[in-house]
């Protein structure tokens, strides 16, 4: 494996590890706010107990989410230094705001939320819990604004003097259609993850006829929270798909396994297929006619460009991009205004020229002979398509799971609202076993978003293979193994703590008899360690 492959693998693994914790934090913080709202309205202590108990799971998740997230920001500098140089001025801004505004806000109020029960009035504590929820979601917002720039680089312009992207409008960056639709889809996907966790653990108690009052209320709230969130995540996923159709044609074509431009309105939506990236054909496919065009374009007439046609369209851009990069090199060496003018002429295709460097002799565009040029243009155009098999199946798994969650939440909400839940253990078992699935669906969603962006780190501007640092393969393998071991231990710790807290349930462990050990005994009649933890 090359340094590029290892850098990609390392970032993908650390992002996927981190993203095991993030969705739950986003959703649980909002669920806690919802539960505490009921506590403040009704004054019933059971809702405070719910906030305390589910807050413990939130706390565990939050801590591990922070631990796994911090390293990723440094990874941009260590493993992606060319990328950081190229877009640092733009990409770094939302990351800095995330740290200084959202993360600091969230972390400050998390402390108040956990330790402020006896020090704040009920409405003040409720406001704090809402601020934690807002902070965690704002944190996601800024990260996804940064990611939105990678998918649709708006609000910035390449400067040939500094050789980097520079801001033109932060407003365009914040309100980019990709950032917007990605934020809402990701945030609400987190709500689904949290709702399934709360519903599943509550179902576990109800099946064992433990903590029934607590579990029935938690289940009811989670089921309603989940059913609306599932509907929203599907709707907002459609919004993201439409943004991709308008901005990232190659991603949409790969998601749908669309080799040739669609024929509206008949074009079938492929339910299953075996796309072959090498031959650029499906080994087989089964689809539903008349679905794809309205699904993607929201019309019955607009065609969706296919991969083969997109590759043909990319060819002139590659040729222009090569000319742009050569002119830029000339300008950087000589400062010649004519070279700058030549660069400006083909500036918007510069990324395609950078991509062509991969196939040039010695990765030097100046060494391409006229005889070699058509072949290099052909190979570069073909490289503009992401891996179709991965994209096609990651999307379908995510989508199928999304609809399955809607069914589980809908049945759960229906039986809970009729107070007939305990007569339907199958629904509760389904809820219990479905706990990890929304997190899995989120991971597949992330794969769809980031695999679909390939071969670019900044779509259309900077190829992935140009973005990495100049480390050795040995260094990359060593750090990759280190990350895998460390992050796997984090996941083991998370699972151990989450299972432990869930098994014990609300109210903490049963009091141990005096003399049964340090945790149970306490000192001079004071509560023991276990009681203190649970208080």
């Amino acid at each position, binding site marked *: 494996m090359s340094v590029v492959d290892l850098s990609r693998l390392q970032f993908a693994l650390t992002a996927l590890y981190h993203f095991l914790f993030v969705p739950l934090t986003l959703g649980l913080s*909002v*669920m806690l*706010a*919802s*539960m505490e*709202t*009921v506590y403040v*309205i*009704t004054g*019933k202590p059971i*809702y405070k107990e719910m906030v305390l108990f589910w807050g413990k799971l939130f706390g565990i998740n939050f801590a591990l989410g922070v631990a796994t997230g911090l390293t990723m920001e440094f990874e941009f500098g260590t493993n992606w230094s060319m990328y950081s140089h190229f877009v640092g001025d733009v990409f770094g801004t939302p990351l800095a705001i995330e740290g200084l505004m959202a993360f600091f806000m969230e972390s400050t109020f998390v402390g108040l939320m956990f330790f402020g029960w006896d020090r704040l009035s009920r409405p003040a504590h409720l406001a704090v819990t809402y601020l934690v929820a807002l902070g965690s*979601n704002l944190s996601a917002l800024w990260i996804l604004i940064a990611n939105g720039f990678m998918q649709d680089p708006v609000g910035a312009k390449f400067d040939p003097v500094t050789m980097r992207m520079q801001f033109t409008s932060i*407003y365009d960056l*914040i*309100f980019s*259609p990709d950032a*917007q*639709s990605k*934020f*809402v889809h990701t*945030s*609400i996907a987190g*709500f689904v993850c949290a709702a399934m966790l709360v519903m599943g653990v509550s179902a576990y108690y*109800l099946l064992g006829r433990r903590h*029934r009052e607590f*579990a*029935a*209320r938690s*289940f*009811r*709230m*989670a*089921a*309603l*929270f989940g059913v*609306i*969130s599932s509907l*929203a995540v599907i709707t*907002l996923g459609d*919004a993201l798909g439409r943004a991709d159709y308008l901005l990232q044609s190659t991603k949409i074509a790969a998601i749908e396994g669309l080799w040739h431009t669609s024929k509206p309105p008949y074009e079938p939506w492929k339910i299953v297929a075996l796309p072959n990236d090498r031959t650029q054909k499906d080994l087989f496919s089964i689809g539903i006619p008349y679905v794809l065009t309205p699904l993607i374009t929201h019309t019955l007439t607009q065609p969706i460009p296919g991969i083969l046609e997109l590759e043909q369209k990319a060819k002139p851009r590659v040729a222009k991009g090569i000319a742009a990069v050569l002119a830029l090199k000339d300008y950087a060496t000589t400062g010649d205004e004519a070279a700058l003018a030549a660069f400006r002429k083909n500036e918007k295709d510069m990324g395609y020229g950078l991509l062509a460097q991969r196939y040039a002799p010695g990765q030097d565009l100046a060494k391409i002979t006229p005889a070699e040029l058509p072949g290099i243009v052909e190979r570069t155009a073909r490289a503009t398509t992401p891996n179709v098999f991965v994209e096609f199946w990651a999307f379908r798994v995510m989508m199928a799971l999304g609809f399955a969650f809607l069914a589980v939440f809908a049945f759960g*909400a229906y039986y*809970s*609202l009729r*107070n*007939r*839940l*305990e*007569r339907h253990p199958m629904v509760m078992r389904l809820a219990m076993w479905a706990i990890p699935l929304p997190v899995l669906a989120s991971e597949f969603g992330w794969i769809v978003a980031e695999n679909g962006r390939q071969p670019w780190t900044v779509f259309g501007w900077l190829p992935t293979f140009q973005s990495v640092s100049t480390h050795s393969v040995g260094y990359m393998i060593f750090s990759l193994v280190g990350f895998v071991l460390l992050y796997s231990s984090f996941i083991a710790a998370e699972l151990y703590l989450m299972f432990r807290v869930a098994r014990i349930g609300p109210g903490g462990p049963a009091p141990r008899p005096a003399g049964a050990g340090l945790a149970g005994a306490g000192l001079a009649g004071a509560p023991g360690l276990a009681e203190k933890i649970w208080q």
Partner: protein
Amino acid sequence: MRSFIKFVALAGVLALALFIAVIAGDDGPWYFAWLVGTTMIVLIAAAGAVLMETQVGPGRGDGEY
């Protein structure tokens, strides 16, 4: 005086909400959808819990969930 301050504070919140709605409505429709949708999700979940309090308890329901 207390009521007046409360009125001014709530009027300020309303003005801010309208400002956000106008900005988000024009340029950030999906951010606006998130604000409205999340509020709705929170309130519907809370309403479900409040409804449960009317369905269960002494003299109400059959003790089944």
